[in-house]
C-alpha cells in the first residue's frame, strides 16, 4: 500500500555495509520504504556524508525524525548518528528479521541480492514503514 504524501519526512539511514548480506538487507529495506511503503514521507541520506559531518545533512537530520537500520553489532548507522546528529528516533537490526524468519535463509550474494534476501527486506520494510507512520503521528501530536 502506498501511503499518503506528507510534508514531514522521516530519514532512513541504512548502515552501508557491503561485506555481508545483512548490510544489503538494510539497504534494500530502505529502498522499499522510501520508494513504495512510505513514499513521500520518508527519504534517504548517505551514511558516509553523515560520518563526514556534512553540515547541511546534519542540520536536516536534526530537524527531522531519523531511523537507523544496522546489519551487524557494530551498529555503524546508530553510533554514527548518535555521534554526529545526537539522536536516533528508532533503530532496527537486520539480523532480527532473519532470526524471526527462520524459514527464509538469506543468500550470501550481495550483488545481486537473492530472492530470500528480498523477501526478508520486504518484511523488515513493513516494520520500518509502520515506524515511519508512528513517528510522524508523534510529531504531529507535538510529541
Amino acid at each position: 500500500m502506498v501511503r499518503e504524501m506528507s510534508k514531514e519526512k522521516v530519514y532512513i539511514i541504512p548502515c552501508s555495509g557491503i561485506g555481508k548480506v545483512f548490510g544489503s538487507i538494510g539497504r534494500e529495506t530502505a529502498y522499499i520504504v522510501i520508494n513504495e511503503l512510505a513514499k513521500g514521507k520518508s527519504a534517504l541520506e548517505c551514511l558516509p556524508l553523515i560520518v563526514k559531518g556534512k553540515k547541511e545533512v546534519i542540520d536536516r537530520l536534526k530537524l527531522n525524525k531519523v531511523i537507523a537500520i544496522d546489519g551487524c553489532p557494530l551498529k555503524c548507522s546508530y553510533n554514527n548518528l548518535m555521534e554526529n546528529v545526537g539522536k536516533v528516533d528508532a533503530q532496527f537490526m537486520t539480523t532480527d528479521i532473519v532470526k524471526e524468519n527462520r524459514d527464509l535463509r538469506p543468500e550470501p550474494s550481495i550483488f545481486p541480492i537473492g530472492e530470500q534476501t528480498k523477501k526478508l527486506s520486504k518484511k523488515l520494510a513493513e516494520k520500518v514503514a509502520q515506524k515511519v507512520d508512528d513517528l510522524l503521528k508523534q510529531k504531529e501530536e507535538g510529541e
Partner: protein
Amino acid sequence: MRKKVGIIACSGEELLGGTLSRAAARIVVEKLRPQATIILCEPLFAAGGLERHGGQGERNFAKEHPTITIEGCEEECAKIAVEKYSGPAAATIRVDEFLKAHPELIPRSREDLGKDGMKLAEIIAEETAKKVDELFISE
C-alpha cells in the same frame, strides 16, 4: 603475512554513484582479485568514536596495507577518511569519470543498476584491478 590491498567504496545509499562504487568493489573482491584484495566498510572505518565499539581494525589495516578508494561523488568520503585516519590512499577511482567516459552506458537507477549499470561497474572494477596489480608490482 601475505600482502593484501584494501578496497573501500563510498557506498553512499542516496546516489547512483554509491551503488556503482559498491558493485565495482564487490566485483574486484569476489571475482577479479579475490586473493589480493579485502573489502573495508567505509562508515566503520570513518566513524569518529567508534573505536570503543571495535571499529579500529579497519583503520589499522589501511595503515599497514595499500588501500584503493572508489568514490561515488565529488565529496570523496572514502579518500578523506583514509587520509585522515590511516595515511594517503594508494589510488582513488572516481565513478563520475567513468560515467562521463561511457555515455552509451546508462544505469537504470541507484536501486537497480540494470544491464548497462552492471557493465559500467565491471569497467570500473577492471580499472581498480589494474591498480591492484600495479601496487603488487611496485612493492
